[in-house]
Structures are given as structure tokens and as C-alpha cells.
């Protein structure tokens, strides 16, 4: 099955985005004549594989290498580096070039920055006196379509950069990406933003539109109707809870990366030598996966079992009774889905070895207790014990941050005590980590009373009776907790910010609601409930489109919840999700942990 997802069913033409990126890359390579060695930043490798097949690269005489500290082994005279704009990567390139120089190799070097060059990086090259030797260019890859309704800007560190280092260049990057989308799909008339960073992105976006306007003919209705920007800062609770959807669990335990997971071949039932890794693609081109990815894992197991039994039944029927040709055809069609079945049965089996562990269930319990925010002492003691048992630092920090956020910080006495225990158990080098977390407001001492209980009640975040098999609310993705971020989106789509203004004020960051472009005169854009009248205008009967952008990352569980929302009756919108990166509690907290030495 293809690694690259099929985007034909996407609500807007995402294939064109991919093709454009592909064409730009090919052109870039064509301009360098002859055979060349393409050295790719390992972090970019995954994104590139979603855009272009290696076979196409080979057609253009390209040898592929990953960038590392080791010198490049190739016969090519032309070496093309494709890297993110990070000074540390510049250092690697420099050492590569110097190594060639000391061996007396004469090569031509090209450095292409993704998505754009920065002064800092060029300075590094200058300092090493290599500036004259390399040709510098840009490869403007701003958006990578991960699936038919999911786009990623691939900015892993955006959240930490903004909160800890005060580096907001990622916001510009996001605005630029949205602006690029507008060139293809028209100016988005309604914008709703919540959170500091979101409002800034909206500002930058307006400025870009003023400087470099997207011209849309007056009568054409833009393909995307509404843009909703949500800042991760607004809802840090959700990503820290363990996700319970199929795709979410896959990510928690096996780390989904650019639409695939890598795991031991033995898990997938392939007879191969020990320790061999294989890649399993996960996207909606896989019909079965599309059906079950967003469901609660409990249900997934049942469905897989049902399917397997029904297939077995078909098979026995087939062998016992005589069949007509058309029945045979049907059967063969069903057999075609067999490899997908086995794949997901294997994966589900592997996952349940994790989920059936008492420690996992205990952790879930604790997460719910913390979110309920009623028994402070129990939570505190649980975390204390985790630290003393030296459980993996990231697990501890996840719960600790969750605890700190729902309580708006810890009492000073407890705060200092836990900090000391942490340093004692995990070493003093984590001082910087603690400082990062404090700066980001994720783990701090209590300054005011927590308004989490109010928010929780007002937005109905904890739902007691959730039926995971036939969900009627988004709370099913966490078996009883409805993600705050998605509740906000729900309100934003339905009625705009106005009715929930009081609650928005309790959450961090400002909010904003504006209309743009020449649409202020068309009456029914006022709120989206009126948008149903507009649907008729959208060509070929498609539904109105909402683009939801998460700044600072989004989890698979939240994506599932959004898909669930847009599949509801009475929801007249398709949803496209864009994010700086698909994250989970682990990867998010990891960015704050400082690696020293």
C-alpha cells in the first residue's frame, strides 16, 4: 500500500498543494545540472516522503543521503543540502565541507533552506569562511498534507519557542502558510481566534493580505468559509491526558510519525530475523483504518472481532454451498481487504498488551481524578510516589503539569518540595527543565484560585455517561472527558465567540473575531448558522468548509473528536485541520526537557 495518502476525497484540492511542492522541488533539482547527491535533514525526511517518491528523485539523477556528522560518501561532484534553518545543522554542513577540503575533494555545494533562509544560519557559514563556496537557496515548503483532512506545518518546537524563548518566528511561518492557502482557495472571510499567539497570527495574516493581496473575483465564494485559530496555551489539559482512540493510542505507544509507525516486524507476524523494523503506513487510503481510527479502542477490538468472524462465516459458506458468479465476485472482493484486517488485528493485539497493564489503568484513573479536580491530596501523594520510585521523567512531568494547570499552580510549600524531590531523583541538570516549565506557566506556584472547576462545569468537560460504542458527544475520545479545545471549536462553529465570552475570559490569552475581504456586504456571513443558506452557492454541492488551526500542536484524539463533530447530522460543515505538528503529551513535554552535555 502506498505510503503517500490518497487525497482525492479531500474537501478542498489538497493534491494541488502537494503537486506544487513536488514541482518546486523537482525544478530546484533540475536547475542543478548533472548527477547530484541530495543530503536531507533527517527531520525533513518524513515530510519529504509524503510529497515525493524516491523513484521520482532518482529519475532526476539524485542520490539520497541523510545529514549527519559523518562526511558524505558519494561520487557526485554536486552536493545539495536540504535543511531546516537551524544553526546546529549549519555546523554539520560546515564540518562536512571542511572534511572534503582536507581530503582535497573539489565539490560544488548548494544549501537550500526549508522553508526560508535566516540570517543566523548564513552567519554561521560566514564565520566558517565557507560562505563563498556554497550557493544558497530556499525551498518554500510550508505545508505538508498528512491526510485528506489534515495539514501540518511541521514545526516541532513552535510551542516551546514561543513560550520559553519568546521566539515568535514560527507565528510568521504559520501566517505565511495560511496566506499561501488563500492564494489557492480564496480569502477566508471569517476569522475566529483564541489565545495570544492565535491573535498575532490573525494580525500578521491581515498585514500580509494588505501588502500582497489575494485577488478574488467578487462573485466567487471562497472555498474556505471560516478560519478558527486555537492556541495550545488555551488548553494544555487535553494533550496531557492519555488518548483512548485507536490512532491516539498508536501514537502514545508507538509514535506515529508522518502518517506511519515503525515497529518490530515480529509484531506484524512477519517471519524475519530478529529486531528488523518495518514501517506501517497509517492514513485514510486504508479503508478499514479510516473506519476505525477515530473510535475508542474498546470498540475497535470488538469491531475487528466481528469482522473476522463474519469473514470466517463467509468462508465456510463458500466451501459448503454452490455459488453464483456474482457471489464469488463479492467474496473475492472481501478477501482483498484481508491484508488490512490482519494488519490491524496485529496492531490492536500489540496495543492491548500495553492497555491491559495495571499501571496504565492506574494512570488513567489518576488523570481522571486530576481533571475532576476534587481530591487534591490523593493526586499529590500519587505524584510524590511516582517521583520517589523514579518512574520515567516524562510520565511524571505529564501528570505533574496536568495537576499544576488544573489547580492554577501548587502551594509554595508543595511546589518547593516536589521540585526538590525531582532534582534529587532525576539529577540537578533538570533545573533548566523546571525553569522552562515555570516560564511557560506549566508548573508553577499558586498565585490565584483555580478557575478550572468553573470552566469544566460551564463547558461540560466531564461527561458521566459516555457510551463509547455509540457516542453522542466528543467526550468518547477520552472515555468521559471532552477536550476543552474541541468544545471551543464547537462553540466557535455554532455561534461564534459572543455567547461564550464569559468563559473565554477565564482562559489564557485574548480572543478575536473578524471578517475580512469584500464580504462584509453579504448578509448571511454574520454567523455560521446562517451559512447553511450559503451552501447552495458552493459549487458541486460540497458543504461549507472550516479550517481549524492549532498553534502548538494537536493530538490525534482531538482530530478524531473534530471528525466526529463534522460527521454529526445538522453539522453543515466539513472540517480541515492544520497544526504546527501532531503531538501527544510525551512529545509536547519532551520539547521542554533541556538536554545538556
Amino acid at each position, binding site marked *: 500500500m502506498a505510503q503517500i495518502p490518497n487525497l482525492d476525497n479531500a474537501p478542498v484540492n489538497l493534491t494541488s498543494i502537494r503537486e506544487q511542492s513536488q514541482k518546486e522541488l523537482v525544478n530546484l533539482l533540475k536547475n542543478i545540472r548533472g548527477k547530484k547527491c541530495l543530503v536531507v535533514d533527517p527531520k525533513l525526511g518524513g515530510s519529504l516522503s509524503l510529497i515525493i517518491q524516491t523513484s521520482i528523485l532518482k529519475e532526476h539523477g539524485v542520490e539520497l543521503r541523510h545529514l549527519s556528522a559523518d562526511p558524505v560518501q558519494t561520487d557526485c561532484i554536486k552536493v545539495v543540502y536540504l535543511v531546516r534553518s537551524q544553526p546546529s545543522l549549519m555546523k554539520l554542513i560546515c564540518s562536512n565541507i571542511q572534511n572534503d577540503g582536507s581530503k582535497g575533494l573539489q565539490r560544488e555545494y548548494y544549501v537550500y533552506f526549508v522553508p526560508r533562509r535566516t540570517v543566523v544560519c548564513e552567519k554561521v557559514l560566514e564565520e566558517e569562511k565557507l560562505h563563498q563556496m556554497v550557493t544558497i537557496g530556499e525551498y518554500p515548503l510550508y505545508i505538508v498534507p498528512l491526510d485528506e483532512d489534515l495539514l501540518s506545518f511541521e514545526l516541532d518546537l513552535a510551542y516551546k519557542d514561543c513560550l520559553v524563548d519568546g521566539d515568535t518566528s514560527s507565528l510568521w511561518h504559520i501566517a505565511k502558510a495560511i496566506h499561501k492557502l488563500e492564494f489557492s482557495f480564496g480569502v477566508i472571510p471569517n476569522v475566529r481566534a483564541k489565545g495570544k499567539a492565535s491573535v498575532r497570527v490573525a494580525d500578521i495574516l491581515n498585514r500580509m493580505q494588505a501588502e500582497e493581496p489575494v485577488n478574488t473575483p467578487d462573485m466567487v465564494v471562497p472555498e474556505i468559509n471560516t478560519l478558527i485559530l486555537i492556541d495550545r496555551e488555551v488548553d494544555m489539559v487535553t494533550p496531557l491526558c492519555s488518548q483512548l482512540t485507536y490512532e491516539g493510542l498508536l501514537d502514545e505507544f508507538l509514535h506515529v510519525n508522518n502518517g506511519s509507525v515503525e515497529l518490530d516486524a515480529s509484531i506484524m507476524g512477519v517471519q524475519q530475523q530478529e529486531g528488523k523494523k518495518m514501517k506501517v503506513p497509517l492514513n485514510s487510503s486504508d479503508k478499514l483504518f479510516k473506519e476505525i481510527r477515530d473510535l475508542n479502542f474498546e470498540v475497535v477490538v470488538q469491531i475487528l472481532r466481528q469482522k473476522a468472524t463474519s469473514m470466517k462465516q463467509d468462508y465456510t459458506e463458500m466451501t459448503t454451498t454452490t455459488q453464483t458468479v456474482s457471489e464469488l465476485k463479492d467474496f473475492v472482493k472481501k478477501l482483498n481487504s484481508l491484508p488490512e484486517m490482519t494488519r490491524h488485528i496485529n496492531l490492536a493485539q500489540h496495543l492491548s498488551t500495553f492497555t491491559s497493564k495495571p499501571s496504565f489503568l492506574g494512570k488513567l484513573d489518576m488523570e481522571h481524578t486530576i481533571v475532576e479536580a476534587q481530591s487534591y491530596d490523593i493526586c499529590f501523594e500519587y505524584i*510524590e*510516589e511516582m517521583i*520517589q*520510585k*523514579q518512574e520515567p521523567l516524562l510520565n511524571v512531568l505529564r501528570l505533574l503539569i496536568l495537576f499544576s494547570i488544573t489547580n492554577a499552580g501548587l502551594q509554595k510549600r508543595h511546589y*518547593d518540595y516536589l*521540585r*526538590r*524531590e525531582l*532534582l*534529587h*531523583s*532525576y*539529577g*540537578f*541538570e533538570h*533545573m*533548566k527543565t523546571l*525553569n522552562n516549565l515555570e516560564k511557560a506557566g506549566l508548573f508553577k506556584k499558586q498565585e490565584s484560585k483555580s478557575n478550572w472547576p468553573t470552566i469544566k462545569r460551564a463547558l461540560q468537560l466531564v461527561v458521566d455517561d459516555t457510551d463509547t460504542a455509540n457516542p453522542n458527544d466528543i467526550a468518547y475520545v477520552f472515555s468521559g472527558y471532552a477536550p476543552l479545545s474541541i468544545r471551543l471549536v464547537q462553540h466557535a462553529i455554532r455561534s461564534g465567540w459572543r455567547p461564550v465570552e464569559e468563559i473565554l475570559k477565564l482562559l489564557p490569552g485574548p480572543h478575536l473575531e473578524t471578517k475580512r475581504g469584500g464580504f462584509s456586504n453579504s448578509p448571511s456571513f454574520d454567523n455560521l448558522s446562517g451559512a447553511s443558506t450559503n451552501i447552495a452557492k458552493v459549487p458541486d454541492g460540497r458543504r461549507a468548509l472550516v479550517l481549524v488551526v492549532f498553534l502548538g500542536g494537536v493530538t490525534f484524539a482531538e482530530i478524531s473528536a473534530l471528525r466526529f463533530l463534522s460527521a454529526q447530522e445538522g453539522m453543515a460543515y466539513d472540517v480541515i485541520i492544520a497544526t504546527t505538528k501532531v503531538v501527544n503529551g510525551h512529545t509536547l513535554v519532551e520539547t521542554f526537557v533541556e538536554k*545538556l*552535555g
Partner: protein
Amino acid sequence: LLWKESWELGKNPMASKGSPLHGPRIKLIEKAKDLFADTKEHAFESKAAEEHARLLRIQHDLEVTTKQAIFVDSSISDTIRTCIVLGNHRAAMKVKTEFKVSEKRWYWLKVFALSTIRDWDALEKF
């Protein structure tokens, strides 16, 4: 500015990890501690830095006496565990009292350490 400076200092010794010259490193940390102490808000950081310096001294001594370079750069809990695993209960006790390790954590560490070396008798006894 002062704060930034002290952070730089606090970071430096970590960055120079694995250097055999522990003398200067300890001095550096102590200097960081003093810098932290200058401002009131950083009392916690100052104390942590002081403890770190003390820990490094003890670890250094332990490495000399046991002739194994396994102590430096591990945390207090790790140090205690290593001591117990090596059967050096006196040293473990000393680290415990030196840093006022709480009884709860002490018991966890002891249980873990004793079970790694399968010293079931000692585990039974305590």
C-alpha cells in the same frame, strides 16, 4: 541581567560534563549559588546549587574509595541506590542524612536496590 548570568554559570558546569577536573566545576557551581543567593526569588535555586556542589564532592570521594567511575553525574537517588547495590550501606546512610532524604523515598530506593542484587535476606530483615 544578574539572573541571566547566574543561569549561564549554572549551565556551564553541566555543559562541560565528563571533564576530569571536578575542582573547577564545583567552584563554578558554588559561584552560581552565590549569584542566585543575591536575589530573593532564587532562594530555591541557590539551595539546589549548593546541594549539587556537595553531592559532587561526595560522589568524587566515593569514586576514589571504590575506584569506580560510576558516581559523578548521577542524581542523589541514584547515588544511594548504587551504594546499596555495592553493599556499602554506611555510605548510603551518609548520603541520606546529608541531604535529608525523606523516609518514604529511602524505603523505595532500598527496596529497589536490594531486589536488583537479589539480596532477599536483607529485604526480609528490613
